[in-house]
């Protein structure tokens, strides 16, 4: 290893020179390897070198650090380094009561936070064996599908941005912004909604929300076509996504990939069908699948999912029942002791939660399993063999959200 000058000017005070710890700028860790795999990875053969990507790199969608082992322009192997966004949410949930856990889980999946905040809510409901009113179930289904569209819209934009196209991102954000403003008039927040409650939802549908929603629904399908027309037949986009990062069905199951990434490999596993919850048993919708399993299939599958979501929203609005939006439960709940497992289909896959209660008002253990975390680990299988520039494209097509990966 050659001697590298690592002193840099401090960002706070340019007069201060800081000798940075080797771990940030050097790819080789300054401690002996802990496992065989680590030893194997950091042993370089002739012609190979290590390249540090991130944690502050725009194409890593947050703060993911990836150490790439490259031979020329080809990636031979890679080692994702997580934990830059770790907040210890599971521990924090054990300290506060069940209501506080809702807002703790909110920022996990910050692109679609209605899904992550559903975890403590649904777990508590299952432990209480509580019947949630029908109207609340429908409202939940409605806002979940809206949030799914907002998330997928952003995904399409980010994927194009990682391939060098800026315009689709702007269109994606226009779409997302409309939905987010709509949800803000319902929940009071644009990003971290904190809308679901144990036993129902926080507020009933209001006029502002419904008029915005009706306005948007009247042109959603047309706008989706317009936006995706930019990419669907774009020569550069197709050549950089078709055949890239191909995931076979067997690999997808072994690597335990879920959500659109699994369905793009041809396996129709969707929790909304496999294990229905909320108002999904009453809804009519298809589970789109694709056989190719490459980046392009993952993109197209999300476009198909947006169409299905619009269908579900339409049904929700037409069949919205009257009635209360909260079950009659005391505000200070003691959850009966027990164990419960719940899962919802988030835009990224199976969002699951395993909750244990000891009969107090605080969760004893609240394990949150985030799909981004599970999906991201398949980059180790998909990326090697590709060019460095395609690493971003494949990673973006898996659509990880680092807030959920690092918890």
């Amino acid at each position, binding site marked *: 290893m050659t001697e590298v000058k*690592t*002193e840099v000017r401090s960002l706070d005070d340019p*007069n*201060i*020179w*800081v*000798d*940075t*710890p*080797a771990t940030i700028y050097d790819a080789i*860790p*300054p*401690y*002996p390897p*802990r*496992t*065989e*795999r*680590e030893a194997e990875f950091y042993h370089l053969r002739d012609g190979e070198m290590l390249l540090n990507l991130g944690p502050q790199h725009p194409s890593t969608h947050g703060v993911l650090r990836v150490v790439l082992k490259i031979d020329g322009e080809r990636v031979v192997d890679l080692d994702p380094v*997580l*934990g830059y966004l*770790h907040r*210890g949410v*599971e*521990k924090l949930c054990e*300290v506060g009561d069940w209501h506080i856990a809702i807002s703790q889980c909110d920022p996990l999946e910050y692109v679609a936070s209605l899904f992550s905040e559903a975890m403590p809510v649904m777990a508590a409901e*299952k432990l209480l*064996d509580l019947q949630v009113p029908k109207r609340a179930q429908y409202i939940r289904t409605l806002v979940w599908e809206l949030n799914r569209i907002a998330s997928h819209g952003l995904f399409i934009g980010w994927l194009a941005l990682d391939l060098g196209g800026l315009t689709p991102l702007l269109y994606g954000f226009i779409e997302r912004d409309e939905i987010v403003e709509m949800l803000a008039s319902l929940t009071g927040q644009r990003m971290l909604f904190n809308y679901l409650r144990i036993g129902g939802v926080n507020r009933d549908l209001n006029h502002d929300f419904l008029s915005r929603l009706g306005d948007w629904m009247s042109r959603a399908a047309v706008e989706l076509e317009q936006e995706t027309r930019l990419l669907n037949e774009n020569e550069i986009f197709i050549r950089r996504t078709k055949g890239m990062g191909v995931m076979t069905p067997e690999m997808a*199951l*072994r*690597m*335990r*990939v*879920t959500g659109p990434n699994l369905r793009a490999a041809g396996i129709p*596993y969707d929790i909304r069908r*496999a*294990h229905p919850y909320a108002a999904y048993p009453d809804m009519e919708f298809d589970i789109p699948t694709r056989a190719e399993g490459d980046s392009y299939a993952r993109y197209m599958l999300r476009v198909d999912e947006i169409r299905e979501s619009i269908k579900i929203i339409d049904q929700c609005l037409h069949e919205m029942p009257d009635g209360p939006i909260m079950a009659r439960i005391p505000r200070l709940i003691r959850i009966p002791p*027990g*164990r*419960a*497992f719940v*899962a919802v289909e988030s835009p990224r896959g*199976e969002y*699951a939660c*395993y909750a*244990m209660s000891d009969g107090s008002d605080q969760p004893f*253990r609240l*394990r949150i*399993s985030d799909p981004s*975390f*599970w999906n991201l*680990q*398949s980059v180790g299988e998909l990326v090697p063999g590709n060019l460095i520039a395609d690493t971003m494209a494949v990673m973006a097509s898996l659509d990880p959200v680092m807030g959920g990966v*690092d*918890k």
Partner: protein
Amino acid sequence: MKRRLEQVFADQFAAPVRQINDQTEIWVNAKDLPAVMTRLHDDEQFEFEILADLCGVDTGTEMWSVYHLWSPRSPDWLRVIVPSLKRDDPRVPSVTFIWPGAEWPEREAYDMFGIIYEGNRDLRRIYMPPDYTSFPLRKDFLLPDDASRSPGEGVRHVEQTHQPAENMRQPQIRMAPQLGDNQISTLSQLPEETEAPPA
């Protein structure tokens, strides 16, 4: 499903099969885990191909490793609990030979609980830095807030200080000459960590 499970694995369960709402719960000893998991995954009458979740649990007296499986053959979630792992040396066989994707969750459970998954080829910390010594999700790792919650047990877990490895370079702050020594002394006068209050 409950009946089929009881027929096939009659002698391998550590406790009777339980049905809780939409979850079937089985308890398996650590040594039987690979055989039971392989059977659940491969057998045509089970086909539990999807590993829905994998996590560790600290009950306060012992550690568990908990798995959730899903199969198209059953409308229920299957929960596999591996109970009574020793707190000072929890060891359980890895399931990465069936699902290589279980590698990261096993690393997470190791990071948070210290459960050692034998057979995982890459069992190192995943979230916490490599020189970290505690297991944060264990029940004896108390947050500062916990002291006010349970005054009887409010002893904070004092983390061991440990020397960095010799070959690890430490950040050094060097001042430009015109600033003088004043600020260096303030930097070195950071408040010392106070002792934990007596129980």
